[in-house]
């Protein structure tokens, strides 16, 4: 029988990050690999209860995010050793049944930066993020590094909107950067691409593929895939292996977790070629994109 998996989402599942998890889980369920139930918009206060409730219902694997409740989440896991927890976390795994994963799609961001660096005419690019937390910082820094790698002269602007959910505000932040000269925007937040679209400029998406949503605008995306992490976790649970480990690596480009998705022919051919070369290097392990979690300036 498929194992029962619960997703607990602190945000509504529209949120790009959660939607990646949600989609992977839905797909897995559709394939019959798992049985999937979920809760969304679960506040920090309620999160541990949701974990406990699912655990008591006999759910075998709980997928979610520990960011706001790192300590309590580990307490819950200790109380329910029969249940496997694999949660997004910036921290470490704990015990046999508490595994973690990070969101490392910076490889794709770096590669997209390499395209953007060659495409910018104003020599200014911009990034719009939610709040300066490590994983957001890492992503934006990687994008900036990709830009600088091919175009050391380029200027990189950063803005944080102070919240995870305010697409209209992300759009305003994007417009502000365009007004400040940026002609390519990296949108860590949804809404950024709308600014680029409005001004007929190009934009880069993050986590999911935004190109279908903004066909003329988003030419590249730093994709993050959750499926490899999920599959690894499911495999461990089915095999009765402990899940108390760090699953982050499964999300790396090298492991097929993340990647760049881009529209061919938008960037100059030589830029695409250089980027593809770098991509191969990352895959082979010859190159590692720097992971800088300091707040980008």
């Amino acid at each position, binding site marked *: 029988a498929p194992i029962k998996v619960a997703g607990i989402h602190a945000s509504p599942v529209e949120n790009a990050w959660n939607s990646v998890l949600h989609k992977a889980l839905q797909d897995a369920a559709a394939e019959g690999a798992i049985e999937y139930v979920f809760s969304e*918009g679960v506040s920090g206060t309620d999160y541990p209860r949701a974990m406990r409730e699912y655990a008591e219902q006999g759910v075998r694997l709980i997928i979610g995010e520990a960011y706001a409740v790192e300590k309590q989440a580990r307490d819950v896991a200790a109380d329910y050793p029969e249940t496997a927890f694999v949660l997004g976390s910036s921290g470490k795994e704990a015990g046999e049944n508490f595994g973690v994963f990070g969101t490392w799609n910076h490889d794709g961001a770096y590669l997209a930066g390499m395209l953007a660096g060659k495409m910018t005419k104003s020599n200014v690019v911009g990034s719009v993020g939610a709040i300066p937390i490590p994983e957001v910082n890492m992503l934006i820094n990687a994008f900036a590094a990709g830009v600088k790698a091919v175009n050391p002269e380029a200027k990189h602007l950063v803005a944080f909107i102070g919240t995870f959910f305010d*697409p209209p505000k992300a*759009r305003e932040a994007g417009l502000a950067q365009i*007004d400040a000269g940026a002609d390519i925007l990296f949108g860590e937040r949804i809404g950024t691409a709308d600014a680029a679209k409005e001004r007929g400029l190009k934009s880069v998406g993050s986590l999911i593929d935004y190109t279908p949503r903004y066909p003329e605008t988003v030419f590249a995306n730093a994709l993050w895939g959750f499926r490899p992490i999920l599959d690894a976790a499911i495999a461990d649970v089915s095999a009765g292996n402990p899940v108390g480990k760090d699953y982050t690596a499964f999300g790396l480009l090298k492991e097929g977790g993340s990647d760049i998705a881009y529209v061919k022919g938008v960037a100059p051919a030589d830029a695409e070629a250089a980027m593809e070369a770098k991509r191969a290097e990352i895959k082979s392990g010859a190159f590692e994109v720097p992971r800088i979690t300091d707040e980008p300036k």
Partner: protein
Amino acid sequence: MSVVFDILASAGLWAAVLRIATPLILGTLGALLCERSGVLNLGIEGIMTFGAMIGWLAVYNGADLWTGLLVAALSGGVFGLLHAGLTVTLGLSQHVSGLGVTLFASSFSYYVFRLLVPVAGTPPTIEPFQPIDVPMLSSLPFVGPALFTQTPPTYAAIFLALALAYVIFRTPLGLAIRMTGENPHAAEAQGINPMAVRYGAVVAGSALMGVGGAFLTLSAFNSFFPTMVQGRGWICIALVVFASWRPGRALLGALLFALFDSFQLRLQTRLSGVVPYQIFLMIPYLLSIAALALMARRARVPQALMQPYRRGER
């Protein structure tokens, strides 16, 4: 200093001010109308959320954009009716009822959205309002791009502010509303039905709030996200006070707040991390409190605000 001047001198800033201000103008006018009749409507945050959801949903299901706004207005009116029923007919405590309406309207809109819109990644989009260039004016240097390249609801919001100012201060209806907010007993003695006036004002005000919310999904953005109203409703409550219950000043207040916000976004881009962004976000609240402290002595607060009116009770 020159950075500040640079930013202020860019037309883009002023265009952003108008865009950011639009939902605030609409929400503030709505809250102001309610309060002028003596009813505090803390349901605004929830009503804006529902307006954003339902307006978008209507357009997503094939209605045109203006119909979307209309649907949002109607839904706002329905919640206004609920609030009026609780506060005007029953005379329940207005802030408690308002908080109840906010809790209900927002959670209800998420629930409805989740049932009706299957999620797959980011929510689906609609084709939102497009900016229109006002003929002639939009080609003026600086002023043109700054002020005359907005979407229609923005022009409508500004017009509504002026229209509401006119209605409140220049028409018999406005006088009836003001008198009901000052002293419903006096209004009744003049043959005005204070209950009806309050119902009307709360329903109409809430309709404006609904439209303010819908602006977010039909013009500022093109899909609905739960929690996307992000406290804009509360800002409106502050702005009403800041505006000392005058529509013209509400317009100015909303523009001023939007100026802070768009300035902040631009300043960050230039000098990131110099001032914590929270400071900028606090400013409108602190300014409103300061304005209250300065004005309260010349109290022009509607005197019957938050006082239930029951016929035949004194």
